[in-house]
């Protein structure tokens, strides 16, 4: 093993040596520099591996042939080896990335770079406080030099601000060192700790100056204006170094020096970190400049790391894992993002559409963002989970709220950015230039994220309960993304069938789970069949579709809350990408993500509160929560964002309507059931029947009823067929919520019937309408019309769909209704029941509109030659129709076992449905799907025959056998009956459909942005003000301390 002292010798020796090379020797210098950067990588990594595997102990490197405290010593232990490895790898890759810029400046710039990396290494390893100061100054000066590399006005300004700010901070550090030595009698950190010199009052002041300087170096909010300017103005390659390199060293220094001070520093650090994490991310939400935005995010992440360090005693043995996962995500992702920003070269995040020019860059961009926000399976997900759980264990909920709120803000701006990259405008002339030396570093960091994810997973307490094979499968789908769509589609369907077959035995005794698993997997397979109609490669579709379905299935399979949340986040992420693929989906997908993130964090908080005082994380502990009111409410609101309860629904219509034709059924018919399943889990944990009088349920019942009414009202006035269906989904989910909130046996049975029905008919309708839209290229119903001749199969599908939707006998929608009214009467929620009944009537209106406007009436000229929807769309539709038929005729096949399960379980023992063959009865009456089917079938046949008999002599009128009076209207469609079809109702009921919720959220959004924008003005750009803020910061912390 090579002594770590050679890291210094090699880097510094080479830096000095480069001075001997002539100015033209940049080529040789480049090679020499790369080699001398590679050697430290080898040295530090070999130490890390050896120490980690136990083959070597931490070593102390003595200098000057003497021992500390007399001479300076360096330590290479596990932590040092880890951090130096990180720094050296960053150093090597960063050099490859920057080499073109550095070569332009000549050999000297490379020497500068070498010294920077050397300085960072010593800062990590040294155990002498003054030595630390010297090498921190080296780093400062080297960074100031690198900032200048860009050599424009902004970088000069930023460099000067940086130099003065850090200069002042380091002077305070020096004052601290003076007193450190004066009172402690040593400059050795370990010696000082051992002597416990803080007991003396003077040493406290020394430590105050020392630690406050390090904190200020970490750019705490709001004393960080200089740092933001640097991030913005420097070359992205240099910003990457600052963000990932120097921040890494500084955070380690803080960790190293904290034992010098008393416990109170931990608390201060927590506050400082929290303020920074929250403040920085909040201000980030109204930032458009790419590098400055990354600066805000960087500072925020460092704030989070400070919080982690501050909570060291509370986190206990989990500290290492939490720190590792939060740190490594920030380290890899931030450097990667800065590097990508250097490739894209766009100042504003709104111009990032150009990134689509490269698949690999877009892929890397995505994973870096997901890693930062903390989506599974990336390390920060594990870290944040563990941290929140540990904090919850000690009841620190305010801190959890801060962490989640900060993460939410961060997610907000990162996803807006991602939206611009995936969907933003992009001019065709511009091509993304990606030289290999610019893409290799971020690529390696991207891959490392997965490796780090693996380690975070294995270090995490619950990590081993996660099934990683599907994740590997998703990754594999990325690798084979170059294949044509139909191959990937087949592979995906095959995998889902395989999964379903394997899953069934393990859940077969739990009918409830089987039902949802069937919705998710069979629904998944059916919708994937429609995907065969897509030509080409369909890049990036399959991995995320699988991710969503895997997430959904994960909800069912979850045994503990960790797995549940993991699956929930996967589902969110996958569905977000699916939704944003639609042509005009950018804004809607963003809204979806906004609500999903917010909902997910509420769920997270709810889980955290439930876990308080409980030792396990089994799903059942929700019911044992010591703060049931909070836990239940938070979880319920979280799940309701997914089921789009009125008020939280505004993301849904756009997201569902603008998605691709075969994605709409996925996210509507299937995905929404994820939220329903969440509610089921919650309600069961609350205790089933026994909790029936819980006030939360009462309000949820109302909410469900109002949602049903509101959703249907909004649906009626839509001209857009897919939006109509989307609003109808809102209403249907309202029914389900209402029925679940009964918390009675029959109520739940009806809720489940509704869920199954909604899955069947909404998937059917979206597929059918999707097929139509695919052919006629418009969503507006009044532009369609008379399509029955061109698309008879689609017509039949829609007809069956709306009959089911409207709950007209004989189809299964009626079953739901029958159960539902039974439940309402038993429960006695008459008033709400009336609302829902009224809502049901309104549904007739839009059902009629849907079928009439699209398929009946006068065919339009331009659609005379449209073909029937693709066969791949029709196949799943008719499978679904068969499903509806079976479920209508023999509801007992499904409902009996569910009923049995509900009755037998301890949750809903009373008032069950009794079955006699196909006939179900309650004490209010009886019903048999089979008989109704028969009766209605006969009636229908008789009427049909009669109608045909009566109409045999009718004469067909040519379509244009009418004369318009007066002028020809410019948009003839709008004069048609089906345009603004229900305007008379609108006069009466329109006020109810005012977009109150949308207005509310818009105003909230607006205010938030204004506040963020206003607070940002704190950073006036005046370097002097920044210095004054730094001084004020010192004073404030002093006042807090003493």
């Amino acid at each position, binding site marked *: 093993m090579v*002594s770590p*002292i*050679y890291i*210094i*010798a090699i880097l*510094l*020796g080479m*830096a*000095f*040596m*480069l*001075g*001997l090379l002539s100015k033209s020797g940049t080529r040789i210098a480049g090679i020499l520099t790369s080699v001398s950067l590679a050697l430290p990588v080898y040295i530090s990594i070999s130490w890390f591996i050896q120490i980690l595997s136990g083959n070597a102990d931490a070593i102390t*490197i*003595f*200098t*000057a*042939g*003497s021992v500390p*405290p*007399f*001479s*300076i010593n360096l330590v290479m232990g596990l932590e040092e080896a880890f951090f130096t490895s990180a720094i050296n790898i960053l150093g090597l890759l960063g050099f490859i990335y920057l080499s073109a810029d550095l070569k332009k*400046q*000549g050999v*000297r*710039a490379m*020497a*500068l770079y070498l*010294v920077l990396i*050397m*300085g960072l290494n*010593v800062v990590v390893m*040294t155990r*002498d406080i*003054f*030595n630390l100061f*010297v090498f921190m*100054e*080296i780093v400062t*000066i*080297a960074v*100031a*030099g690198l900032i*200048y590399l860009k*050599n424009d006005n902004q970088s000069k300004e930023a460099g000067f601000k940086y130099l003065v700010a850090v200069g002042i901070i380091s002077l305070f550090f020096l004052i601290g060192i003076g*007193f450190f030595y004066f009172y402690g*009698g*040593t*400059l050795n950190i370990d010696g000082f700790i051992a002597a416990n010199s803080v007991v003396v*009052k*003077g040493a406290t*002041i020394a430590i105050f100056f020392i630690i406050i300087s390090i904190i200020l170096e970490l750019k705490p909010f709001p004393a960080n204006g200089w740092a933001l300017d640097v991030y913005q103005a420097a070359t992205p390659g240099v910003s990457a170094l600052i963000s990932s390199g120097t921040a890494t060293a500084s955070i380690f220094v803080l960790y190293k020096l904290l034992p010098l001070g008393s416990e109170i520093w931990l608390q201060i650090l927590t506050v400082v970190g929290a303020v920074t994490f929250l403040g920085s991310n909040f201000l980030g939400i109204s930032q458009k400049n790419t590098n400055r935005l990354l600066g805000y995010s960087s500072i925020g992440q460092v704030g989070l790391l400070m919080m982690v360090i501050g909570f060291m005693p509370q986190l206990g043995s989990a500290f290492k894992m939490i720190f590792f996962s939060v740190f490594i995500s920030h380290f890899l992702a931030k450097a990667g993002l800065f590097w990508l920003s250097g490739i894209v070269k766009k100042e504003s995040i709104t111009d990032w559409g150009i990134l689509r020019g490269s698949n690999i860059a877009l892929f890397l961009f995505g994973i870096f963002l997901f890693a930062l926000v903390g989506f599974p399976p990336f390390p920060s997900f594990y870290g944040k989970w563990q941290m929140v759980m540990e904090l919850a264990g000690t009841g620190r909920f305010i801190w959890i709220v801060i962490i989640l709120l900060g993460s939410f803000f961060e997610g907000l701006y990162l996803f807006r950015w991602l939206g611009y990259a995936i969907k933003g405008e992009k001019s065709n002339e511009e091509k993304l230039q990606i030289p290999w030396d610019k893409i290799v570093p971020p690529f390696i960091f991207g891959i490392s994220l997965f490796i780090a994810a693996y380690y975070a997973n294995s270090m995490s307490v619950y990590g081993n309960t996660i099934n990683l094979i599907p994740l590997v499968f998703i990754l594999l789908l990325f690798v084979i993304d170059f294949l044509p769509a139909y191959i990937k589609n087949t592979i995906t369907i095959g995998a889902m069938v395989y999964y379903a077959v394997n899953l069934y035995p393990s859940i077969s005794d739990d009918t409830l789970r089987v039902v949802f698993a069937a919705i998710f997997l069979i629904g998944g397979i059916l919708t994937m069949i429609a995907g065969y109609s897509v030509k080409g490669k369909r890049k990036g579709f399959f991995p995320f579709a699988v991710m969503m379905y895997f997430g959904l299935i994960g909800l069912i399979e979850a045994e503990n809350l960790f797995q549940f949340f993991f699956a929930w986040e996967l589902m969110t992420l996958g569905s977000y990408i699916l939704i944003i693929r639609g042509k005009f989906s950018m804004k809607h997908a963003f809204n979806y993500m906004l609500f999903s993130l917010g909902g997910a964090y509420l769920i997270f908080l709810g889980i955290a509160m439930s876990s308080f005082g409980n030792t396990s994380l089994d799903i059942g502990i929700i019911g044992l929560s010591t703060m049931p009111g909070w836990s239940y409410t938070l979880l319920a609101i979280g799940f309701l964002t997914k089921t789009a309860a009125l008020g939280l629904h505004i993301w849904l219509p756009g997201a569902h309507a603008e998605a691709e034709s075969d994605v709409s059924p996925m996210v509507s018919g299937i995905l929404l059931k994820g939220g329903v399943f969440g509610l089921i889990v919650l309600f069961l944990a609350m205790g089933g029947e026994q909790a029936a009088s819980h006030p939360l349920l009462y309000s949820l019942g109302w909410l469900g009823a109002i949602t049903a009414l509101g959703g249907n009202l909004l649906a009626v006035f839509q001209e857009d067929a897919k939006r109509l269906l989307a609003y109808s989904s809102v209403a249907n989910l309202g029914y389900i919520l209402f029925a679940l909130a009964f918390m009675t046996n029959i109520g739940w049975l009806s809720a489940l019937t509704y869920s199954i029905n909604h899955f069947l008919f909404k998937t059917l309708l979206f597929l059918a309408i999707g097929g139509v839209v695919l052919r006629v290229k418009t969503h507006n119903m009044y532009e369609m019309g008379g399509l029955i001749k061109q698309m008879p199969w689609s017509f039949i599908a829609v007809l069956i769909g709306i009959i089911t939707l409207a709950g007209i006998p004989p189809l299964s929608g009626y079953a739901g209704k029958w159960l539902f009214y039974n439940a309402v009467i038993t429960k006695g929620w008459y008033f709400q029941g009336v609302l829902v009944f009224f809502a049901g009537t309104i549904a007739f209106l839009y059902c009629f509109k849907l079928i009439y406007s699209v398929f009946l009436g006068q065919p339009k000229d331009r659609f005379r030659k449209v073909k029937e929807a693709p066969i791949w769309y029709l196949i799943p539709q008719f499978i679904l129709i068969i499903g509806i038929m079976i479920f209508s005729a023999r509801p007992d096949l499904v409902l009996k076992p569910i009923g049995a399960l509900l009755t037998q379980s301890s949750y809903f023992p009373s008032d069950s449905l009794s079955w006699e063959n196909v006939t179900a009865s309650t004490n209010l009456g009886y019903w048999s799907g089979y008989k109704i089917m028969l009766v209605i079938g006969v009636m229908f046949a008789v009427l049909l025959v009669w109608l045909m008999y009566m109409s045999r002599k009718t004469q067909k009128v040519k379509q244009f056998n009418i004369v318009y009076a007066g002028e020809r209207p410019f948009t003839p469609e709008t004069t048609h009956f089906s345009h603004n079809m229900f305007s008379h109702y609108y006069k009466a009921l329109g006020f109810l459909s005012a977009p109150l919720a949308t207005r509310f959220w818009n105003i909230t959004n607006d205010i938030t942005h204004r506040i963020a924008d206003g607070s940002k003005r704190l950073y006036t750009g005046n370097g002097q003000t920044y210095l*004054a803020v730094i*001084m*004020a910061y*010192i*004073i404030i912390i*002093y006042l807090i301390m*003493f």
Partner: protein
Amino acid sequence: MLRNSLRVIIIAALGWILFQVYSGYSSRDELNELAGYYATEGLSEVGAANLVTSVVVTYRGLDTLGEVTILFLTALIIGLMLKAEHRGDRTRLRESSEFLVTASHVLLPVIFMVGVYIFINGHLTPGGGFQGGAILASTLILMLLSFTNSKISHKVLEITESVSGISFIVLGILGVILAGGFLDNKILPLGEFGKLFSAGAIPVIYSFIGLKVGAELSTIILEFNQIQGTDDKSL
């Protein structure tokens, strides 16, 4: 007005904090353990009569390495920054007076020798590599003042700087190989206390430091000198 009063408050508060520190201070009348060690054991261990030198060059040799690195960096960055500003014709500077030129001829070698003396004797008398190096660099200032239009080669300075820098590191590494650790001065015999050839490698190291510091400060001065006259006179 508000800004000004805020500033006053900030400074007053800082002053108040510092006053707290000041009132907490009381002078000491004993060397602490560490300094005591340097003053007793250190004398025989390192063999330098100048205790500060033994601390600077040996015990805290790594700091000193960092320190010369800082000067190296500064010279390098200033070179990078000002290189871009060298463009354009330099106005020809006025010739210096006869007095200055004549005196320089006499003084330059003397000052140079004093500089060398100071860093060679750094382990015995007040002074050392930094002080000596600074004096060396001052000869350059005198040269620039008296021979205003002479050309001074960067190359010589760069080579001096690099060679002494590398030698410094090589000596440090030799310490790891031959003696007790990085920058150990005992790679050479300690010699007789108080003599020129004593204290092991200290005089050698200090000489290299002297040369390096001299070269680096000279480079900085040269860089600043070269931008002179490229802009208006108000600067």
